[in-house]
């Protein structure tokens, strides 16, 4: 087993365990932490695939901003352990098996179509510069649009969260 494969399996294990832990933990903070683990693991995978910039962004934005926001909100609302209510058992009962099936189908399909994917030569390390060129030439309009989206999101968040002055 060559080193990259080893690294892959370690990181994959990290990610999966983190995800499972997210489900098992009953306190949002712990779920958040396990999600952070998943994200870091994914960042590692990105590095493994040579997508360093994406990896960095993954950690900076997801780990450093979004998840911090989550933790912050959890702390702000002082969210406690989630309570046990029996309503919508159906959701859980029907949903979990379904989700498992979904997972299975997806994985099986991917595995089944593995050779088609494998036909293509795995790419070399993705240079950040090329990424930048792509982002600011071919995808410049979507890029600008996202900036606008962010602006709107900020406004929306402010409007939502501010206490209306009585």
């Amino acid at each position, binding site marked *: 087993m060559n080193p990259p494969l080893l690294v892959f399996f370690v990181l994959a294990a990290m990610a999966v365990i983190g995800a499972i832990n997210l489900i098992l933990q009953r306190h949002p903070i712990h779920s958040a932490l396990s*999600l952070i683990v998943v994200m870091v693991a994914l960042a590692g995978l990105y590095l493994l695939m040579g997508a360093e910039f994406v990896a960095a962004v993954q950690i900076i934005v997801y780990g450093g901003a979004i998840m911090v926001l989550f933790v912050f909100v*959890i702390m702000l609302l002082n969210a406690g352990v*989630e309570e046990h209510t029996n*309503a919508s058992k159906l959701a859980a009962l029907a*949903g979990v098996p379904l989700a498992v099936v979904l997972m299975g189908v997806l994985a099986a399909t991917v595995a089944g179509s*593995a050779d088609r*994917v*494998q036909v293509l030569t795995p790419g070399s390390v993705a240079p950040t510069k090329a990424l930048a060129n792509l982002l600011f030439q071919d995808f410049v309009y979507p890029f600008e649009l996202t900036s606008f989206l962010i602006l709107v*999101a900020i406004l929306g968040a402010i409007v*939502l969260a501010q206490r209306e002055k009585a």
Partner: protein
Amino acid sequence: MVPTHYYLILSAILFGLGVVAFVFKRNIITIFMSIELMLNAVNLAFVAFSQALNKLDGQVFVLFVIVVAAAEAAVGLGIIILIARNRQSLNVERVDLLKL
């Protein structure tokens, strides 16, 4: 060299787990997190493909997904704060009036 479909399978599994979390958890915040988890799973698939096809578009997509996720988090958490304020609870089952 790691075969591409390993990544894809991993992403499938993560996505499924995300769905499970979404269906299984009761805390709104956690549910929101599980959405993020699914997004991440998809991102993984994107990057894996971009590496397999030796095209960077996949990574660009990931960047966009991340941006959108950020915006979504901002708004979503705002909503959550509002809900918590009005309902004194973060349990989804108490938030089924489809209004604040």
